[in-house]
């Protein structure tokens, strides 16, 4: 076991003080000279042909600098399938479709101008559920595909399919079979900081975008493509990421408003800022998809799982974002949570006239695990086996390959299950009539990057200066999750300098090397692995040059010491002979010889060595660049096979609840969460991630649902859309971290950002079942659903 100086110890966050003091610059705070304010005119119908747009009054309003529509700007396509347009020309397909935009000298004038834009529509029949949209003869949301070919249905042309083993044999082998359909609602990311950007052109027509993004380099690629669409091929988009007030997946795509800001900035010649209000954020930013999952599982007489059959249907909304690839993640628990050998999985996404959806924390995993872990409890009951024993019996183990081809290196699932059971005093159950119960649910998630793109890599540059500071340039995004805290620790640890000397620079495509994006719980895993690679490269170079320069410098130290203290007798030690690269060590910013005498003059300050190497003829500086690409594979999602991540995170959560059977309210008495995190990097940051994720899981379980009627969002504000507040989190949460020390993880660590909210809702639902005997299939678990289920239960009993 390595002895770490920083890793595993409490450390405050480098971005903390500025954020606490209000000095951090969010997109809301950022100003540019001459900046204009952009505002968007959104559709008044969920599905309609645009007959005519009259912008004349808006154009005449004093203070308006530009009014743009699809007819007076170049066409810019966007989206995962390029089925979306920055501004809509012929047809609107959802309420939030962008029809026109203005740039004005202040936000109020921009808003007034928007109200002056008049649009004539020819309303078309709308489709507001996947079921409606799949009916024969249903109107088409998209008449043509992006290549211009006629479409005949509303199915999104993406395939997510997996079949393994022999399903029929698995069914024959099953003694007990349980089937269920589970649904999850659309929910919003609810970032504290709303979405926004500033777009600015210089006189060479190069573009800078300050973007609230989690994918600066993919955004750069998208914006470069837009420049090309605008006749500016070869010009460069530079993406700078300001301080972000949360991401949760909402920054995984580029958005229409960003292209609109770019078009307005190019039209006016001034920087243009667009920032969403909270109401716009709710209504016009893509939420998490709603889903319907039909699941059938069976087990033999001993409780061993024999097969799993899964069909998922998702409402894609009107356009396609990266979030449409949720099933790529759903496939992971479907094929690989618990040991199972005969699996069928199929997911279908359907276009509707609802708001189009995008990524959110967990990326399909909370949706699917809701179905899987609820259904698993039903199966355990059917088989007459305790839910904990049932899970232990079927638990994953280290060094196994799952039906999807996931290579599980380390696996702490059994330890997680045991820890939660012990903390919940699992075997001691409440008596019937107490309305109290306990429930469990587990998860598997990517913990070592996730290759859903050709490259899953992350570049990093370390630049040492003459003062002993280490400047870090990394393309990952700190969005509040604590990435910079662990990256600081990793650099300090791996290089051997004080963490105070590590300075993380702003994420900027102009200065940082490429990174695919901060998603899939990959930020810390990638950044810290890259930091270790870079630090090792730097140490090699430092130690190599130290063979010559270290003896020179410590000789000076010795001379000084002797002058001060003429009686000093140095130990019998041949510095020149000992100064070999393999003998050096660098710790806390001092270079010295391992196993050498502990004399202070032999401890050389790194900065002094660097200066000695820098300031001379043919001097050198220390800057190193690495590109870490994890050992994982881009799966074939049509076949549902491929080792998507270098390692996998596991975890179990347990809930103890009390149900008020008169009001249907559920009170959580206690939550326990045990997660296999590989290795704890920063305990405080990790706890923060977990507490936050569990709060979001509680929101998913009980409160959150983005309601829409005929495509219109009904609750676009925090008065009507409820997330848990401190009052709702008034129960103990016991966290336990299992350190499985994964060989691929930096210092042994796995990704941890998403797992915390994945099993929360099913653990609670299982506890509710234990308490009152009713099974809720549809999130969120509202009091009236609980009461209705109780009523139904009573009727069936009578």
């Amino acid at each position, binding site marked *: 076991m390595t002895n770490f100086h920083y890793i595993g110890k409490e450390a405050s966050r480098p971005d903390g003080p500025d954020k606490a003091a209000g000095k951090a610059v969010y997109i809301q705070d950022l100003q540019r000279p001459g900046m204009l304010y952009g505002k968007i005119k959104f559709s008044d119908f969920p599905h309609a042909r645009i007959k005519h747009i009259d912008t004349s009054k808006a154009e005449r309003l004093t203070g308006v600098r530009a009014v743009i529509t699809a007819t007076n700007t170049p066409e810019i396509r966007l989206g995962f399938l390029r089925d979306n347009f920055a501004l809509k020309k012929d047809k609107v397909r959802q309420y939030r479709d962008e029809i026109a935009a203005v740039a004005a000298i202040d936000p*109020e004038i921009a808003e007034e101008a928007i109200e002056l834009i008049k649009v004539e529509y020819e309303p078309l029949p709308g489709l507001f559920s996947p079921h409606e949209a799949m009916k024969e003869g249903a109107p088409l949301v998209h008449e043509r595909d992006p290549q211009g070919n006629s479409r005949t249905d509303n199915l999104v042309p993406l395939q997510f399919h997996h079949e393994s083993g022999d399903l029929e044999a698995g069914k024959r082998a099953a003694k007990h079979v349980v089937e269920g359909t589970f649904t999850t609602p659309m929910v919003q990311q609810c970032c504290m900081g709303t979405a926004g950007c500033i777009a600015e052109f210089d006189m060479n027509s190069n573009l800078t975008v300050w973007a609230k993004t989690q994918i600066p380099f993919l955004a750069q690629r998208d914006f470069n493509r837009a420049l090309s669409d605008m006749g500016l091929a070869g010009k460069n988009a530079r993406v700078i990421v300001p301080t972000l007030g949360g991401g949760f997946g909402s920054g995984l795509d580029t958005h229409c408003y960003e292209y609109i800001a770019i078009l307005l900035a190019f039209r006016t010649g001034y920087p243009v800022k667009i920032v969403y209000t909270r109401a716009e954020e709710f209504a016009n930013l893509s939420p998490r998809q709603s889903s319907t999952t039909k699941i059938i599982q069976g087990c033999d007489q001993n409780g061993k799982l024999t097969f799993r059959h899964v069909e998922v249907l998702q409402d894609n909304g009107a356009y396609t974002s990266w979030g449409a690839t949720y099933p790529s993640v759903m496939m992971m628990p479907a094929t690989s949570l618990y040991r199972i050998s005969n699996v069928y999985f199929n997911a279908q996404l359907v276009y509707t006239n609802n708001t189009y959806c995008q990524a959110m924390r967990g990326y399909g995993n909370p949706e699917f695990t809701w179905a899987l872990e609820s259904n698993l409890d039903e199966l355990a009951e059917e088989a007459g086996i305790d839910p904990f024993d049932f899970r232990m019996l079927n638990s994953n183990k280290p060094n196994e390959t799952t039906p999807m081809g996931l290579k599980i290196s380390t696996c702490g699932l059994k330890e997680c299950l045991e820890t939660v059971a012990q903390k919940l005093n699992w075997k001691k159950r409440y008596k019937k009539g107490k309305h109290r119960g306990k429930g469990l649910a587990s998860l598997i998630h990517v913990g070592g990057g996730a290759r859903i793109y050709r490259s899953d890599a992350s570049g990093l540059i370390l630049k040492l200066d003459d003062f002993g500071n280490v400047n870090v340039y990394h393309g990952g995004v700190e969005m509040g999750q604590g990435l910079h805290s662990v990256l600081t620790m990793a650099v300090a640890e791996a290089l051997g300098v004080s963490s105070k000397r590590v300075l993380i620079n702003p994420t900027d495509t102009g200065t940082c090397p490429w990174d695919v994006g901060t998603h899939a719980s990959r930020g810390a895993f990638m950044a810290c692995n890259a930091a270790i690679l870079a630090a090792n490269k730097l140490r090699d170079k430092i130690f190599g040059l130290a063979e010559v320069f270290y003896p020179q410098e410590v000789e000076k130290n010795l001379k000084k010491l002797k002058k001060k203290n003429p009686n000093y007798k140095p130990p019998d030690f041949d510095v020149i002979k000992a100064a070999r690269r393999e003998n050096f060590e660098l710790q806390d910013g001092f270079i010295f010889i391992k196993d050498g005498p502990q004399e202070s003059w032999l401890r050389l300050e790194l900065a002094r060595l660097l200066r000695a190497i820098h300031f001379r003829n043919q001097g050198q500086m220390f800057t190193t660049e690495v590109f870490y690409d994890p050992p994982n594979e881009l799966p074939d999602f049509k076949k549902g096979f491929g080792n998507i991540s270098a390692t996998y995170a596991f975890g179990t959560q347990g809930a103890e609840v009390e149900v008020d059977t008169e009001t249907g309210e559920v009170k959580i008495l206690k939550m326990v969460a045990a997660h296999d995190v590989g290795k704890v990097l920063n305990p405080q940051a990790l706890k923060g991630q977990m507490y936050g994720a569990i709060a979001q899981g509680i929101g998913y379980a009980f*409160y959150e649902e983005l309601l829409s009627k005929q495509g219109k969002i009904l609750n676009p504000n925090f008065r009507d859309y409820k997330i848990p*507040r401190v009052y709702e989190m008034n129960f103990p949460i016991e966290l336990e971290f299992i350190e499985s020390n994964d060989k691929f993880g930096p210092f042994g660590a796995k990704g941890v950002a998403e797992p915390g909210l994945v099993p929360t809702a099913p653990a609670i639902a299982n506890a509710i079942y234990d308490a009152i005997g009713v099974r809720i299939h549809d999130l969120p678990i509202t009091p009236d659903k609980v009461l209705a289920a109780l009523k139904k239960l009573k009727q069936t009993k009578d």
Partner: protein
Amino acid sequence: MKRFNYYKPRSLDEAWELKEKIPDALFIAGGTDILVGIKNGELYPPALISLRSIPELNSIKINGGAHIGALTTISDLIHHPALYNIYPVLVEAAKRLGSVQIRNVATIGGNLCNCSPCADMALPLLVLDAKVRLQTAKKNREIPIDEFFKGPGETNLTPNEILTGIVLESPRKSAKAIFLKKGRVRMDLAIASLAALMEMEGEKCQKARLAAGSVAPVPLRLFKVEAQLEGTTITDKLVAEAQQLAAESVAPITDIRATKEYRRQIVSVLVKRALKNILGWSQA
């Protein structure tokens, strides 16, 4: 959002004068409802006349009973040194209104004039038999608070009238009251809420007052339930009947917060819990 002029008179006379000049102007107190309405484009008054700088509206006087100035903020009600001892139910309700930030600006008069069915301050005032003082430059009247609410957002106020204060009598020693509220989360507009007050003489209920929120077009006195309880010895059976009667007396709607069926159920549960709590039979 439409632009508007903003006036800040220093006296009631000045306020009425302004209102005479700009009849479509709105009087504004804390602004926690009106400004939201303006920002959402639901209200577009040409002018707002703020009542915040009129000193006489901004005081709590305790003298046998109490006179609470209409511009008293909800936080001031909560932190008043004497009010809780005399009217605990009023302060308990105040604590459940909005967030700290809202309570620091929202006023008791504003909460009543906004006349939402879920107005938290209406319920304790209804069960305390409060009167509201309504004034114009020429006329000064006091009416029982249950006559004040006419419909959603609609009060008994005439166009130029200002609600200047709330008048409360000193409660009887035997009176006990409670305020209960259910939302989707703790800090929420009520799905259903209830205030109840009973004066007991031995086993007998001398006086009963019940008022329910969010279950009718206005904050609703449950007169039938009161009549059924008064003069009787309360038993479990009677409580069950009161629950039934309460559920029948309300006219809730389904909205994004809850269904009407659920609201009816909650009113019934709240009546039971309130009565049993007042009687000391159980914790609510």
